[in-house]
């Protein structure tokens, strides 16, 4: 069933000219504000940057411990939970010299690949990770020149990120 909306239009409304003038007023006010008061919606991007939330989810990284050894124990939980299936892990036994804490890390990732082109940045991996190893930094500048560069390997993921970037 259709809902019939009747609008009462006066003669002036039908003439459209007041409405046109209102439109012109809006654009002129905006023109004035942008030009003289500098109130623009856009920013000069590479120089200026928007302040994103502390919880923004950007480029992935894997946190490392004091010895630059990744915290990841390749438990596959991120790979399991990933809805985009963009994480690929190959695990192996962690050598003992990487294991200063004795029992803590039995496994290590030989390969830890994230296909950033597939990733949907949902942050489930971060949430699933029992070791707080995989995290999403606040970096959103992820443009690359080739497809291969968007395929993050362990070396890229282990790069230094301060805080959450």
């Amino acid at each position: 069933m259709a809902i019939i909306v009747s609008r009462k239009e006066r003669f002036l409304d039908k003439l459209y000219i007041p409405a046109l003038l209102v439109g012109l007023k809006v654009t002129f006010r905006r023109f004035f504000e942008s030009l003289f008061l500098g109130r623009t919606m856009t920013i000069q991007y590479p120089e200026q940057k928007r302040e994103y939330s502390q919880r923004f989810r950007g480029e992935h990284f894997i946190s490392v411990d004091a010895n630059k050894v990744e915290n990841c124990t390749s438990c596959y939980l991120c790979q399991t939970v990933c809805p985009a299936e963009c994480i690929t892990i190959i695990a192996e036994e962690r050598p003992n010299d990487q294991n200063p804490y004795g029992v803590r890390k039995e496994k290590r990732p030989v390969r830890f690949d994230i296909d950033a082109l597939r990733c949907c940045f949902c942050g489930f991996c971060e949430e699933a990770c029992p070791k707080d190893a995989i995290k999403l930094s606040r970096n959103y500048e992820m443009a690359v020149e080739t497809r291969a560069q968007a395929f993050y390997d362990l070396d890229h993921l282990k790069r230094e990120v301060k805080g959450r970037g």
Partner: protein
Amino acid sequence: MTKPKITFDGQTFEFEPGDTIMRAAERAHIDQGIPRFCYHPGLPIAGTCRMCTVEVEKAPKLMTACSTPAADGMVVHTQSDKVRKSRAGVMEFLLVNHPLDCPVCDQAGECSLQNYNYEYGPGTSRFRDDKRIWSEATTKRLSDKLTLNMNRCVHCERCVRFTEDISKSNELLMENRGWKKELVSVADQKSFDEYQGNIADICPVGAITFNDFRFKKRVWFLKARKTLCDGCSKGCSIFADEEKHVVYRYRARRNDQVNGHWICDEGRVSYKTYMNPERVIQPLLKTGAEGVACSWQTVLSWSLAEARKAKRVLLLLGTDATSEEAATLMQILPSYWQAETQIRLWNGTGEGVQRSSDDAGLDKLLRRRDKTPNTKGLEMLGLKPFDPAQDQGFDLAIYYRSGRATLPAAPCASVEIGWGVFDRSEAQRFAAVWPGQGVLEKAGSYTNCDGLTQSFDAAVASHGGCAPVKKVLDALKVLSTSASASHEEVALGSV
């Protein structure tokens, strides 16, 4: 005589005299309601874990289901409040020292401790002190095939009982007492028997893991497919665990007629023949010294022309062919050419086994000399073993085998065609290779050493251009009847 009856949670079932409560529950197929760590149907009863306690009416205390004999008219409650409280207590004690490393532990996903804790456990721990930690036995090599993580052990002693009673190697034992109880191996990091994989299978937690599968895959990705092990003439029932048509491991599947609960280590890793990256999965045609990948049409047309030129053709069936494949080949393949075709079987495994009478058990449990699954089945089809001394003078030899039977050392004919599962080095001697299916990829039936015929289904899809026998025969028929067969008609597999 009427059978005795037992009542589980209000339902009455019959049981055999002499059964324990657990055995009676198994007969009634309700044994999943009774958790257990130390009890295993294939092992002697220990009664140490106290997880399987059930409430028996008129009994003053909870009784262990695994060791209490069932009596006629017994009324058992497996899920009463008292029982569940007891189980929660047992779980809490077990978890006092169990590390919380499920994400790293390979058993996670098929771990009894995990499952029972979800079902019965208290959910929280009241234990506030440091956990017991074996720093040395955290990741210790128990043998060449097993890795021990003593931190995770719940002292069920299934492994000890397995070596005592099943493999009879008596290699594993528990040292010390109480919470210092530690599993040690007498052999000390050496191989102690051929059935060690079962120890990893029966370990209810992740304490003992099988090195071949360790860290390869998380078990929740895997789907268990029922199939047969074709590693020897025993024909053990197994689960092939696959993900996306890649098999990562074999596990024993209970089959009391053949293998009970166990399989040997050799069979456990025999999936590698089919998952071998060196396996030939595209048709090959030899040009110069190397076999070059080509289409099915090319290789079949070439082979058919060779067969038509030949005067005598030898079809050598490996004893790893299924009975169906062998029968089909025997009847149909010779009709495609005029040459006289001699059909022989070939085994050659286990230092020259050729007929089933050569076969013998290597030990008292499962392993056999004959490392092919279907020697008896092919003999039942009336095939005789190939004798290089007698059978001679062939122009063309076609070997059909799917990865288990050996190949005759000397060439049997001037032109040899390999059909089935070969790796790259084996394929070197053939003028052409038709890639065929391994046991994981086909359905069929094998007759084992005891004369038991078992059929099985395909566990995974064929790899690459590997095609079933029937499709290859169909394509050969198209090529042999029409002069110009279209490419589509003989496009087999995903070439």
